[in-house]
């Protein structure tokens, strides 16, 4: 009788363990946590999208956002992607963004497009995902 009980208990344990293993398969999904640079670039994108609309409609731009200067210091998802090329293109971007906000007429569009082209050049060799989205910022 004891043997039968022991056997039953053993079977129940095995069956229970199998069920628990199946439940553990539903692991927690890990999502990307945006870096300081990612957050900054998302902001830069939205601001420039609004600027593009204003330039196309011959409206004055908003104030130049000093926040953009953080591009020189913000932490990247992959810190190794900040090299000399990144830093020099960041300078081109900042100079031409500032110029777009200070000029009038055709020079606004010229400087704006030059700043967006600096972004495109940089993203061609690192973090290529947003390229199609950034290209849409160019004003024909």
């Amino acid at each position, binding site marked *: *009788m004891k043997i039968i*009980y022991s056997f*039953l*208990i053993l079977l*129940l*344990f095995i*069956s*229970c363990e199998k*069920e*628990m293993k*199946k*439940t553990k*398969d*539903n*692991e927690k*999904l*890990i*999502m*990307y946590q945006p870096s300081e640079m990612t957050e900054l670039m998302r902001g830069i994108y939205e601001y420039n999208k609004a600027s593009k609309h204003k330039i196309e409609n011959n409206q004055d731009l908003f104030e130049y956002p000093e926040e953009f200067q953080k591009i020189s210091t913000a932490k990247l*998802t*992959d810190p190794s992607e900040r090299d000399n090329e990144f830093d020099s293109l960041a300078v081109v971007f900042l100079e031409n963004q500032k110029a777009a906000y200070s000029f009038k007429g055709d020079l606004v569009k010229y400087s704006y497009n030059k700043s967006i082209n600096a972004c495109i050049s940089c993203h*061609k*060799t*690192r*973090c*290529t*995902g*947003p390229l*199609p*989205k950034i290209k849409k910022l160019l004003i024909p």
Partner: protein
Amino acid sequence: MKNIIIAISLLLLVIACKEAKEETQKAQIADVSYISFGEKITSDNSISKEEMYKKFSKLKKGDTIDVKFASSINEVCKEKGCWMKLDLGDKKESMVKFTDYGFFMPLNSDHKEVIVEGRAFVSEISVDELRHFAKDAGKSKEEIEKITAPEFSYAFEADGVLMVE
């Protein structure tokens, strides 16, 4: 007395097992439900990965088709989840990116079943991009440097993704 203790132990085990089974059943129900990423899409009328491969095979450079297909993830970008490679059978796969870089997939979603809806086309991937993807996938420096020629790929731009829970 011993028999009573054994009987109570058995009863407790049966209850514990029943609870575990209930949890598993909940998980099994969740198996047929989906987690949605990007634009909301439905699971109906999707074609299989084999049918998708046939469609890709007929595409020429410059062609684009709107389509929804079901497959499993061979590999996902380990840095951000900003691209994934979907199985097309016959050792072929499709490189999926997300419309306007608008959403990312979980970093640990390798081998998950998914349905994607968007646009399929054939594209050339530059050496720079191939090296970037290799880096994202955690490949070694030596493996990355071996990439010297562009590749043609079965590309897909997804507006929305449903992933089996």
